[in-house]
């Protein structure tokens, strides 16, 4: 299994990572991707996620080749 993982805004600063590739381990949902990608860092409150550029929830399943993104509450407009 291979996943592309992205972090944005303050989450990129906090994790020290903007983008990484997870390979090998089987991960079943977004929360497991977070735990694996951050070495079990606590999930900051209000963190949002997306799978393949579509808003998702942390229980949503992930599949080989997915891009999983983590970001804080949005503040555009």
């Amino acid at each position: 299994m291979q996943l592309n993982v992205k972090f944005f805004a303050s989450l990129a600063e906090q994790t020290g990572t903007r983008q990484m590739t997870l390979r090998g381990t089987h991960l079943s949902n977004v929360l497991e991707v977070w735990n694996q990608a951050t070495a079990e860092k606590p999930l900051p409150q209000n963190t949002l996620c997306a799978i393949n550029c579509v808003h998702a929830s942390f229980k949503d399943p992930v599949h080989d080749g997915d891009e999983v993104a983590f970001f804080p509450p949005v503040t555009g407009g």
Partner: protein
Amino acid sequence: MAVSLCAEPFDPWLTLAQHAASLRKGDHGACASFIGTMRDTNLGDAVQSLTLEHYPEMTQHYLESLTDQAVNRWQLNHSLIIHRYGQILPGDTIVLIAAWSAHRAEAFEACRYMIEELKARAPFWKKEITQNGERWLHDAPSS
């Protein structure tokens, strides 16, 4: 229907005028538009500039799907979403939303819907640069 992400300052009124001119005269009776502009103060502090980070692939995808939602819900002749990213200065337009329709209720509702959904869901993040340093707006107390 148009969606555009913009790294450089743009003139919102000129953009609106150009889009309006591209529509067939006499088709639409109403245009509602919204322009969001960078203020030079926020939460009591002077703000010198703003860095607007976004998630480019998702932003484009999200704004197109937002346009689709509005078009499916209201009878629109045309719609417009333009959003800046990158370095932004006070007075710069951050976002421009417009909806053209036969009647005003649809134009207003579609315009308001698009800006409210965009503010709640589009993947943009503002970092303010003030005299006291930088701060992410999502970490600041909400105003």
